[in-house]
Each structure stands twice: as structure tokens, then as C-alpha cells.
């Protein structure tokens, strides 16, 4: 690695080794447990669609019915396809409806019946995975036809009206104004819903519900924009939360291009049970890997609650863990949108040099990952003039350190949801800086042994120390004791714990079997 920071390759290797040591027991946990959301995702891939008249998805009703009869530990695939055969039904959604009405009993079959059910389940899920494969091929074709953005970083903009039919014209206007990726912010609190809402939605709090139909509508609208603009405009949504596996499946089926998917965000910031999160995360990332989706991790969140100078190393540790978990789930480096943020207090002396050191450290540790560079939020005070200047410096650091994606900062952060004019001014800022200094990274070489190099070495050193400490106990203990962020999150507490079950000896999940490339 020919780096600008002169990082010690032995120390970098040590950091990765420690991240693997901390993560391995968690992967083992994920391989030996399932959750209601993993099982619902399997059913979605097998073709269960729609919701009951109260809006509860049929996948939820079906999983609940299976759990009531035989529990979750065998996986739902075999009991469901066994019942399908016994009831002589052709359609799994029909089975879900009958099960919800109480007219179907589920069992765990043995012998020949079990083999038949497994084979049928695998066939149905394979059809779902093939649909994801087709959507991926379609993306590759469209990118070839319309082209990628002409430069890095990609410009990433957010829409958040709550109404999908308002989001669409806003997203198309943002694309026309230069956005390469559009993220539709979800309604506040959706991450804590243990089901995925259905249909097109027009009401949300500070964001729009993520539903399969909303995904489809927005992707179709951006395909139109891509055609008009002659570049493929990417669409982003959020997997993180209680429904990570299902969100991943729906994103793959509707050709979303990027998904927020962090290994610890749900635990630390949403108080979701740690085991639930790690099990859901592994499955969701396996689906993302197959779908060719780029994940965006959430390290910026650490710095909104902790100090960006004192806690800079926790960002590095989280990036290393996210990388380990992502690779383990089959994601390639080009799919790792590891996050980090410009959140050093601007009143701290040399704050810009600190930012450069942190951003360059992430760049050099993960040379092949499309890093996601997040704008200042914590030190945006409502002084929109100063905020615009801060965003300019943020853009400059992004250009100087070769970031992959740049989330456009708004000077009205913490004041209002962005106005049309706020977005326009913010994009002018980005265009000016990238236009004026887009190639400056070629000339920007920090002095050997100087402030930036020293700071980067210091942060990496602290990250390795923290990982050493984590490794002596276990990642779950470390999270329980509040090592990441200030929140303490014990493994036996948190939301969604009642949806986690250890595998029985005959557990079967055709989706995992297909995604891991085993059997056939």
C-alpha cells in the first residue's frame, strides 16, 4: 500500500485480525440462531405477498401461525411447504390466509414428507432469488446504457416528505440538479416496527415509510430520470431496524442500489436486542451481496452522541467490524460504503487538519471501499451562514481525501427539513468545491511525520487498543458494558428479543443454503 499516511502495515493487519477475533463469536451466534424477520424474509422470497385487511402482512400472520404450532427453531420453510402439500394449495399466500383464519395446522414432518417439503421450499425460494438475480443484471445493463456519474464522490441527496407522491417529483428534481444517489428517509420509528407496512403511503413522520410498493414507484421514477439525464441515478433506503432481512429482500426484488445497513446501529441507537441485530444483519447482508447492493454503514451516528476527537477511534473500530461482518456475509469491497463524518467541533484548534487526518485514515485503511462521507450536523447551530462555510470545508475534505459518496450537507440542518432553496445552495457549494478543487488530492500529500500523519497514527493506535480490550472479553460483553457510544446494551435486553430462537437440529433455511452456495 503506497499511502499518504505512512501507516504501519503490521499494525493495520493487527487491527483486522483483532476485528475478526471480536466478530467471530458473534458470527457463530448468527449461524446458530434465527429470528422472526429472517423467517419472514424467507417467505417473501418464496412468494408470500400482501397484507390482511388490518395491514398486517401475510408473512407475519403465517410465521405467527407456524410459531404457535411448532415454534420457530425448525425454520418455517419445511412446516409451511409441508402444509402446502397437505392442503393441496398452489399458492403460499393463500396458505397464509387460511392459516390466519385458523384452518391450517402445522407440523414438523419426518422422512419422505420432510424431504419433499424441503425440496419444494427450496424451489420456491430459488425462484425468488432468481428474481433478485434478474434485477441485478438489469441494473448492470442500465448502468452500461446510461453510464455512471462522471466523477467521484457521488453526490448523495435526501428526500423526506412523508408522501411517496411528493417524494417522487422532489427526487427527480434533485437528480436533475445533480444528485447521483437519492435516499428516501424513513418515517421516524419505522426501524422499531416488527413488520413492513404495505402499499403506497402518503403519511409519515419526518420521512416516508419503506414499503415494497414505495420502493417500486421510486425506482421507476428514477429510471425515468436516468434516461432523461443520461446517467444511472441510484436509489437508497434503510435496512437497519427490526426488519433488516425483509428490507434486504424487498430492496433486492425492487432493484434498490444502496441500503443503510450497520452492524451495531440498531443495538446502540435503537435499543434493539444485540443477538436479534447480529442474526438479522448477517442474513440481510447475504441478500445484499447477492443483489449487488452497496451497503452504507452508520459510523456517523457515533459522533453525534460522542466527541469526534476523543472518540474518533470508535469510528475506526466500527468500520473494521462492519468490514469483517460484511466480508463474512459475502459482500465485496466495492459494496462497502463505510461511513464516517465531519463532526469535529469547529471551535477546536486545527479542526480541519483533524478532519483530514480522520478522513484520510478511513481512505487508506479501506482503499477499495466507496466510503460514505457524512456532513456536519452536531455543530450546525442554526447560523446558516456559518453552516454553509462549514459545509464548504466538509466538501473540501471530501475532495482532498477521495471519498466515494458525499452526502450533501444542508446549512439548515437542525432548523427545518431542507427547503428547495437550501438544497440548491448546498448543491452550488458542492459543485463549486468539486469544480475548484476536485483534483487537489493529487497535490495533497501530508508532511511526513507532520500533524496529520501523527493524528492518523494515534487514532489507529487507539482503535487497536480498544479492539484488544474487546477481544479479551467478547463483543457482546463490550456492547453490554457501553464500550461503543455511551449506551450500555446487555445481550439479554432490548427490543425484538422475543423473536430470536436457537436452531433445532433439523433447522432448514433454503435461502441461506442458496446464498451460501451449498447443496443444489
Amino acid at each position, binding site marked *: 500500500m503506497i499511502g499518504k499516511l505512512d501507516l504501519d502495515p503490521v499494525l493495520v493487519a493487527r487491527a483486522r485480525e483483532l476485528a475478526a477475533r471480536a466478530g467471530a463469536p458473534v458470527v457463530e451466534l448468527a449461524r446458530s440462531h434465527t429470528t422472526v424477520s429472517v423467517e419472514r424474509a424467507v417467505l417473501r422470497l418464496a412468494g408470500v405477498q400482501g397484507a390482511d385487511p388490518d395491514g398486517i402482512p401475510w408473512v407475519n400472520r403465517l410465521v405467527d401461525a407456524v410459531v404457535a404450532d411448532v415454534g420457530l427453531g425448525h425454520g418455517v420453510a419445511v412446516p409451511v411447504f409441508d402444509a402446502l402439500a397437505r392442503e393441496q394449495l398452489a399458492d403460499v399466500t393463500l396458505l397464509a390466509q387460511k392459516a390466519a383464519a385458523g384452518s391450517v395446522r402445522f407440523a414438523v414432518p419426518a422422512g419422505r414428507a420432510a424431504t419433499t417439503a424441503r425440496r419444494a421450499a427450496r424451489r420456491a425460494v430459488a425462484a425468488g432469488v432468481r428474481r433478485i438475480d434478474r434485477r441485478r443484471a438489469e441494473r448492470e445493463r442500465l448502468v452500461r446504457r446510461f453510464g455512471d456519474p462522471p466523477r467521484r464522490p457521488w453526490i448523495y441527496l435526501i428526500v423526506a416528505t412523508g408522501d411517496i407522491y411528493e417524494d417522487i417529483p422532489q427526487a427527480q428534481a434533485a437528480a436533475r440538479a445533480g444528485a447521483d444517489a437519492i435516499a428516501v428517509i424513513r418515517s421516524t420509528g419505522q426501524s422499531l416496527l416488527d413488520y413492513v407496512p404495505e402499499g403506497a403511503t402518503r403519511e409519515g413522520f*419526518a420521512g416516508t415509510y419503506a414499503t415494497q410498493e414505495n420502493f417500486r414507484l421510486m425506482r421507476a421514477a428514477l429510471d425515468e430520470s436516468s434516461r432523461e439525464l443520461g446517467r444511472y441515478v441510484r436509489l437508497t433506503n434503510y435496512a437497519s431496524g427490526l426488519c433488516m432481512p425483509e428490507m434486504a429482500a424487498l430492496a433486492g426484488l425492487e432493484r434498490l442500489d444502496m441500503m443503510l445497513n450497520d452492524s451495531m446501529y440498531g443495538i446502540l441507537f*435503537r435499543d434493539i436486542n444485540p443477538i436479534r441485530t447480529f442474526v438479522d444483519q448477517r442474513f440481510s447482508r447475504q441478500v445484499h451481496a447477492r443483489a449487488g447492493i452497496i451497503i452504507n454503514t452508520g459510523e456517523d451516528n457515533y459522533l453525534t*452522541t460522542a466527541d469526534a476527537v476523543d472518540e474518533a477511534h470508535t469510528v475506526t473500530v466500527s468500520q473494521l467490524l462492519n468490514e469483517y461482518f460484511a466480508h463474512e456475509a459475502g459482500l465485496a469491497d466495492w459494496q462497502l460504503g463505510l461511513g464516517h463524518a465531519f463532526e469535529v467541533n469547529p471551535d477546536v484548534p486545527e479542526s480541519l487538519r483533524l478532519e483530514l487526518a480522520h478522513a484520510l485514515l478511513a481512505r487508506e485503511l479501506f482503499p477499495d471501499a466507496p466510503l460514505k462521507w457524512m456532513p456536519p450536523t452536531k455543530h450546525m447551530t442554526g447560523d446558516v451562514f456559518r453552516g454553509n462555510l462549514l459545509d464548504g470545508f466538509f466538501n473540501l475534505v471530501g475532495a482532498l481525501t477521495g471519498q466515494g459518496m458525499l452526502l450533501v450537507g444542508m446549512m439548515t440542518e437542525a432548523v427545518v427539513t431542507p427547503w428547495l432553496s437550501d438544497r440548491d445552495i448546498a448543491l452550488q457549494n458542492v459543485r463549486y468545491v468539486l469544480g475548484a478543487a476536485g483534483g487537489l488530492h493529487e497535490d495533497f500529500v501530508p508532511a511526513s511525520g507532520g500533524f496529520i500523519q501523527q493524528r492518523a497514527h494515534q487514532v489507529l493506535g487507539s482503535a487497536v487498543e480498544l479492539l484488544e480490550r474487546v477481544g479479551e472479553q467478547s463483543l457482546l460483553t463490550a456492547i453490554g458494558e457501553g464500550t461503543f457510544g455511551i449506551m450500555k446494551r446487555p445481550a439479554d435486553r432490548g427490543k425484538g428479543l422475543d423473536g430470536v430462537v436457537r436452531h433445532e437440529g433439523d433447522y432448514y433455511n433454503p435461502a441461506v443454503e442458496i446464498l451460501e452456495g451449498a447443496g443444489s
Partner: protein
Amino acid sequence: MTAAPEQAVVPEKQIVRPYGDTTGDGMVQVSFTLPLPHDKRAEGAAIQLAGKMGIDPAMLVHARPMGDGFTFFVVYGRVNHLVDTSVVRVVERDFPLLSAKEVNAVVKRQLRRKLSVVGACIGTDAHTVGIDAILNVKGIAGDKGLEYYRELRVSNLGAQVSVPDLVAAARAEQADAVLVSQVVTQRDAHLHNTREMSAAFREAWPAGKRPLLIVGGPRFDEAMTAELGVDRIFGRGTTPGEVASYLVHTLITSRRAATV
């Protein structure tokens, strides 16, 4: 230093105007967007709006088309409005600001037990930035949070806490004060949530026994305490030190003064 005793307590009429570069020039700067394509007519419309806002003469210094059919304007000009500061009503700080050491000393000497504080973000609000700035040791801008105060026992329940859970926690912790942070304001969620919370506490405790209820957030009007059923509202820029000082003043110092 002691100030000379003042005779007059009636506030004097004090008139000010906005200040550009000369006293009394009345100059302001505004920006806005009109849903019109950029042309002479749109610029005329912007000047008309500025005129109706009391800006006269209005100088249109910048106009920029945005997307299809929108134009952004920046206008400078003189307003004819006068501001009378003697009729401005605000909530002034009505308690002395104490250091952490002083707060601890008052609690230890006069309360003779730890003062119990329970904090949370309620409703669907997941923004713990505010409550964490006040409660976490880290605090904000060098002012340490309430967890740092030795004589305070702090329980931070975090985000998206339901009102019944908050009431239960306040009971379990024998809370002297409950701090609630609300950042999300879509559809006045912060006001609805606060009213729901104060009603639940009124129901759960006899009058005069319930914990002190304090809400904070960037979009609250500090004068709305009665309307929201809380004891105090803290707005943008509140520091942990102010909250701690308010707590000891209200729960300890002023109560003793009243009963002695």
C-alpha cells in the same frame, strides 16, 4: 459592587429599529423562493412581496432560477417597523446559576440524600442529542452533564420511551424531577407528547407530590408551561449547569425558604 437603588420600576419605552450600518437605518436582509420562472415579472413579484413585508425601498440584490419554475431571491431594504423592547415578554432566568460543586453542596447539606433525576425522549422521537447533552457525563461545550454531579442520581432511559414506562421508571427511581427531550416537531408531535406526558403524571401522583416535570427542545416556546402542564421548559442553548441550578433552586432552596 452594589448598584444604586432605582426608584422607577415601570419599564421605560425603548424603541429600536434594525441596524445595518447606521443607527436607525432600519435595514434588513431576507431571502425567499417564489414558484415563478426567473424573469422581469418574477423580480417585480419579489419586490412586491418585500413591499408588503414593510421593506421600502426594497433592493433586489440576487435572483437565481432553481429547477423548473422556481426563483430564489435575496432582498435588502429598509423596514418601517419600530420595536418597543419594554413590551417584550420573555422568561428570564429566575434562579441563581451555581457551579457543580455548589449544586452538590446544596443537595448534600440541605436534602441529605441524592436527588433523583429521570430523563427520556418520549414518543417516536429517537433524537437523544438533547437529553444526552444534558444528562451524559460528556455534557455540551465543556459543561459536564448531570451524571457528573456526585449528588445527583441520574437514570437516562434513552429514546422512544412510552409514557407509561416513563411513569413507572419515575416511580421506581423515586424521581424528584423528570426531564423529557423532544426534537421532532412534525405535526406538533412535541406538544402532543408533552401534554400526554404531563396528564399521565397528574393522574399518577397526588397534587404537590409529583416529580418536577421539565421538557426541553429547540422548538419549544418557553412561556407555554401552563398550557403544556409542565413546571419548566428549556429551549435552544440550555446547558446542564442551568438545569442543575434550576433543580436545586426549585426543589430545595426555594422550598425551604417557603417553609422556614
